[in-house]
């Protein structure tokens, strides 16, 4: 199953990994995964989404926020947040709650 096909529960509350080192570089978030020795650079939207992944906000709630903050329509926000959450999960930057 590709990342794009992986289902995302809109009611789930993803949580960003607490052990990642995060720094803003030139307006974008850079995450250093010390355990795997990997560096990730997130664009502005992905940075926002990752920061909202606090284990309390659902994917649907994050999409609502994204629609407001980035002034996009709700359907596009749902699609983009689901895609970003899948990618962040695949990169090991967030932990998804067990289904």
């Amino acid at each position, binding site marked *: 199953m590709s990342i794009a096909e992986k289902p995302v529960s809109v009611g789930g509350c993803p949580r960003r990994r607490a052990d990642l*080192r*995060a720094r803003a570089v030139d307006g974008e978030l850079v995450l*250093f995964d010390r355990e795997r020795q990997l560096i990730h*650079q997130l664009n502005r939207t992905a940075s926002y989404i990752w920061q909202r992944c606090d284990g309390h906000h659902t994917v649907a709630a994050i999409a609502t926020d994204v629609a407001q903050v980035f002034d996009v329509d709700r359907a596009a926000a749902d699609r983009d947040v689901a895609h970003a959450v899948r990618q962040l999960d695949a990169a090991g930057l967030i932990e998804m709650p067990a289904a």
Partner: protein
Amino acid sequence: MLISLLRAATVGNGLPLETFDERAVRWVVDTGLAPLFVRATARHPEAATSPLWPLLKAADLTARVLTADQMDAMTEIIDACRDKAPPLVLLKGISIADQYYPAPHLRPMRDIDLLVERDAVPTIEAILTRLGYVQPPQRSAEFYAKHHHGAPFVHSETGVWVDVHRRLVASTSALRADTVFSMETLRRELRPSTFRGRPVRRLSDELQIVYLSCHWAQRLQVVGGMVAMVDLTYLSRNAPDIQWPRILHWAQDSVSCRSLELLLTYLSRRRLIEVDAEVLQRLSATQNLLDRLTRDLGHALVDRYVVGGHDFSRLVSERTLGRLWRTLVLRRRPARRLRRPRASAPRKV
């Protein structure tokens, strides 16, 4: 080739990335100088299209994150030590990256090196423990009793390492006998300074030059050996007024003279630093013919393995290089008394 990179990076000129082959770029990344490389090549519009760019960019971003953690850790330690101990003395990377580099992340740092008066060591170590640092078991207590710093501390969350130094060189080091490394000189050469607006102390530029040179030469590192070279390059370019006569005075009859001469002549020959010719001549005047030959051999070894990153062979392994360096380049004979070079009589041609 990498010398031209160092020259370009430290004077701020741009270089096209395609000038360097993949092996050279990978060597730069291995040695921790990728951020300098990015700085030197980023202005060229084609840089980002190179297949090697992601590798460099990743190393640059990693350095930015790790250095920011180290700088924040340093700030937290200074704040925690305030009013509990004399201002901390910053050594090596944490000092020079903050003081003389255009941006701290350009200087790779494995750890934060602090120098603390012997009486204050237990206080500082207790503060580090309170801040969440631990000392993973590494070497024996007997080893650290003779060493110039105690067992390293590491923070479990940030991964930042801290070495608390009691002196500049180990009690077993031949350098210990040099006046420049005596406690008296050290106390005289501490300068009040600030780190992010907080009071700290640093070594004087002159002592810093001797210390960096000796540290580099005593433990020549193939990977990372270029860092001290960049340190001295930035220091000599940006320090306001280096008092070379003081350095020459310390070098007299010293073990450190050889390390100093070795590194300064190398950097000067490669046009990375500008040192008054008389200073180099006076340092070189302490060396006999064999010394000069071994110095040139030392420079060739640095070119090939430290700067060039050449692979080791069955004939020369990293171990044999280390042995060769110690026996030939670092023979422990104190330098002869420094002499002023005699002006040679004009010759008819």
